[in-house]
Structures are given as C-alpha cells and as structure tokens.
C-alpha cells in the first residue's frame, strides 16, 4: 500500500517534470522555421486533380491520434499511375522549396512496389493505392468513425495480382470528395 502511494507520487512528479521539456522542445522546433508545412492540403488536392487521381478522399483524423491531422486517400489506375502520383507530390514539394539552402522533402515509403505508396509530409499523410490494394486494406472503414468493421478473408497475393483495371477509359471517374 505504501509502495503504491509512493509510485503515484513518483509518477505525478515525473509527469510534472516532463512538461517543461515538452514545451522547450516544441518552442525549439518552432524557432526552427518549420511554420511552413511541406505540403498543404489545397496543394495536395491541386496536384491530385492535375495528375488525374481517382476517388480522392480527405479524412480528418480524430483528435486522440496525435501523429497526423489529415489523411488523403487517392486511387491510381495502375502501378505506374501510383508512382506518378507520388512523383508529382515530391516534385511539388521541391518546387515549393526552391532556393532554400537545405531542402526538406517528405518521406516516401513503398515506392519500389508501387501498390501502396505513403507520402508522409508532416501533418498530412497521402496514401496512393492501387484499386485492388485499396479494396483489400479498406482504410476508409478503419479511419471513418462509425462504420462497421467487417473484415474479409481475402488473400494478399490474390488481391494484388495484375488484372484488368476497372476504370479502363481515359476519362476520370466520379470523384467522391
């Protein structure tokens, strides 16, 4: 019992002492000149419209999750289209920071495969997925609150096999955003 009270006191003191460090660290990062984000949400939507990505959806991440503010889902028609979406976003970030002596680029994950590419630009995470990969992982069902999570037993290898794409024409599909 006495040990439990001591543990509570210790944890309270530790949380109180951790708070100035957090404030100091955030102010230090604010001085760093990072007030401009790598990619804003309007710029991302403009780039995705230019590159003709299908079914662009912007999901605001709920407040208990501190690691991102918005999550953008975009569907490419093929593997090379997904790669071009990622390349266009990286190019936009480079164009925005032209002239800066040290350029900061968003981190890109999964560019070798091309099925699911994540562009992590700070507070906005852009996911560029193939049609089959988007149906397989079902990220809207996970991040949209209130939907029923019915998980299907679909195999990854069967889901990501190369089949004829759904939107076969050059015209863009109907946008839901």
């Amino acid at each position: 019992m006495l040990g439990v009270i001591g543990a509570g006191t210790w944890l309270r003191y530790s949380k109180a002492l951790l708070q100035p460090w957090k404030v100091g660290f955030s102010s230090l990062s604010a001085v760093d000149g990072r007030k401009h984000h790598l990619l804003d949400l309007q710029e991302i939507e403009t780039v995705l419209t230019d590159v003709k990505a299908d079914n662009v959806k912007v999901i605001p991440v709920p407040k208990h999750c501190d690691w991102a503010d918005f999550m953008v889902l975009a569907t490419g028609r093929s593997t090379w289209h997904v790669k071009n979406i990622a390349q266009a976003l990286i190019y936009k970030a480079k164009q925005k920071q032209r002239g800066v002596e040290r350029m900061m680029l968003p981190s890109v994950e999964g560019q070798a495969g091309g099925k699911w590419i994540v562009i992590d630009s700070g507070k906005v995470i852009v996911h560029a997925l193939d049609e089959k990969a988007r149906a397989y992982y079902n990220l809207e069902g996970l991040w949209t609150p209130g939907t029923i999570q019915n998980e299907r037993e679909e195999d990854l290898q069967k889901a990501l096999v190369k089949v004829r794409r759904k939107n076969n024409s050059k015209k863009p599909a109907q946008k839901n955003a």
Partner: protein
Amino acid sequence: MAAIFASRCSRVGRSLFGGLSNSSPGLFTTLHEMTCKNMFSQQQRTFIQMRTVLKVVDNSGAKKVMCIQALKGKKGARLGDTIIASVKEAHPNGKVKKGKVVYGVVVRAAMQKGRCDGSEVKFDDNAVVLVDKQGQPIGTRVFGPVPHELRQKKHVKILTLAGHIA
C-alpha cells in the same frame, strides 16, 4: 485505461533522479528504495535474436513466429526493425501457413527504446506485424498499441492500419 497503460509503458530516465533528490530528502529515500526494488525485481531485457518467439498482432492468420534472422543489427532486432521469421502457430484458413518463412516488423519490444524527451518506451511482450518482401503488410488490421517510433523507421503503413497509437 489508456492513461494507466501510457504511464506504465513509459519510464523516466535516470537524469531526473538528481533533481528530485536535491528538492526533497524524504522523497529521495522513497525513490531510492523504489529504484532498488525495480532494479532487483525486473529482468534485464535483451535483443530479439534467433529463436525468439514473438506474438503476431495482425489478422494475417499467424499466431506465433520464431525469429530466424534480424536484418539490421548484429546483436539482434529492436523496436521498429525488420526480422525474418518462421511461422510456428497459425490459425486454420489463414493467409499464412505454419512453417512459412515470412518477414516481420517488430511493433512491440520488451527491450526499452529511448525517446527524444529522455523517457523510455518498453512493452510487456514482443509483437510483430507480418509484411511481404516489399514491405506491405499481409494483414489488414493491427491490434493493440503501436508506438509512433515506427514513423521514423518508415513504417507508416503499419501505423495507418493500427487502431491505437501509443
């Protein structure tokens, strides 16, 4: 629930004890006893190396995997590293079978990992998420808490599939 877990899994570094001892002598004895109890009672955690059995926390169908190689370090794998493992227990009708050699990303590790504010994060179990060779997760959901150090390790896909970020 989450607050209790967050306070349990992150611990304050050693440098804070000096300031606390200067402030209050009575509190210092209590903290000293607690430090001795913690040091004597808890086992020292090691790296994830060959023949370490890890729990699988996605819905890929595997229950337990055994590590056969750590890809990054010589001593073993830590939080956020990629390992090669073989499946030891699997659900029937799952996506992977028993005996299959798979890649996995360590999402929870019993060995502690230091954060940038001086605290440490460590968990009670060793957990892994199965990925394929290109780094795509095999399952569609990740269960349990996942620390946000995976973002620095370029595993944002696993963070996206996780429901609870620690």
